[in-house]
């Protein structure tokens, strides 16, 4: 095909678009933006393949490379990039001053890591702990009363994923919530979470 008339100047112009769009895919940090870019890359790749005479390759690129791959990726990204946080339902847990600012802060913090926060309500503390032990949620949020005054609560977040615990430990101020790593085998004491043995009492 190299010396055929179709390989004229404009063919090179179109071919320059391919590395450009590929670079656009690579330099995206947000997975959804990268998927949009992947679609653009697929469309341009199909155009180039068809221009070079490879109709079958172009069709495969459009149907499998763009349509099927984007569908599968979007399902995978949507179901994996999420943090499920178990919370107590009912007015007692949410009706305090710290609830909404804490949620906003958590959402903003997780958004920087391209994660989204999903709240899973549970009826009481017992089922909350069971859900954490059964790995139904990635973390739970407990509201501890510090004193008899109902307004005074100290939110305590237990996460079972080590990476999330590291993020929380470095970026979550103590004033908003107290974050700890939760382990199944309570015998292993972690140096930076001395109170985790109390969670099984």
């Amino acid at each position, binding site marked *: 095909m190299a010396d055929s008339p*179709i390989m*004229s100047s*404009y063919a090179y*112009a*179109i071919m320059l*678009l391919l590395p*450009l*769009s590929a670079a*656009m895919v690579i330099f995206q940090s*947000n997975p*959804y*933006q990268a*998927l*949009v*870019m992947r*679609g*653009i890359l697929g*469309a*341009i790749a*199909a*155009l180039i393949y*068809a*221009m070079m*005479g490879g*109709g*079958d390759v*172009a*069709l495969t690129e*459009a*149907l499998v490379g*763009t*349509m*099927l791959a*984007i*569908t599968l990726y*979007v399902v995978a990204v*949507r179901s994996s990039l999420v943090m499920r946080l178990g919370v107590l339902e009912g007015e007692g847990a949410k009706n305090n001053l710290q609830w909404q600012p804490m*949620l*906003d802060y958590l*959402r903003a913090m997780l*958004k920087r890591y391209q994660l*989204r926060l*999903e709240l899973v309500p549970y009826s009481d503390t017992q089922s909350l702990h069971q859900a954490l032990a059964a790995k139904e949620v990635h973390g739970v949020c407990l509201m501890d009363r510090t004193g008899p005054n109902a307004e005074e609560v100290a939110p305590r977040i237990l996460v079972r994923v080590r990476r999330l615990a590291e993020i929380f430990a470095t970026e979550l101020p103590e004033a908003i919530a107290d974050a700890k790593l939760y382990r199944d085998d309570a015998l292993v004491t972690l140096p930076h979470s001395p109170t985790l043995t109390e969670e099984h009492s």
Partner: protein
Amino acid sequence: MTLVLIAMIGALLIPMVEALQDEDIWQRMLAFASIATKTSVMILVIAVLQDDWMIGVVGVLILSVGNAALMLLAHIIKRVDDAMEG
């Protein structure tokens, strides 16, 4: 006809630049939709130019089924946006 194709490449560059410069995901989806249509029509023009109708069939097929992923992507991005905002 070659001039037509070169003009089409110029039109294709506009949404590419838009996708490069704009950070908003919906503007990028618009650029994607525009690029998808434009490339399929360009495949059709190339098929006529080269007189190779196999490529034309490919272009029509891409045109008629290729946009499904775009719609799915749009819906999922909307759902995720709603979930992010709470």
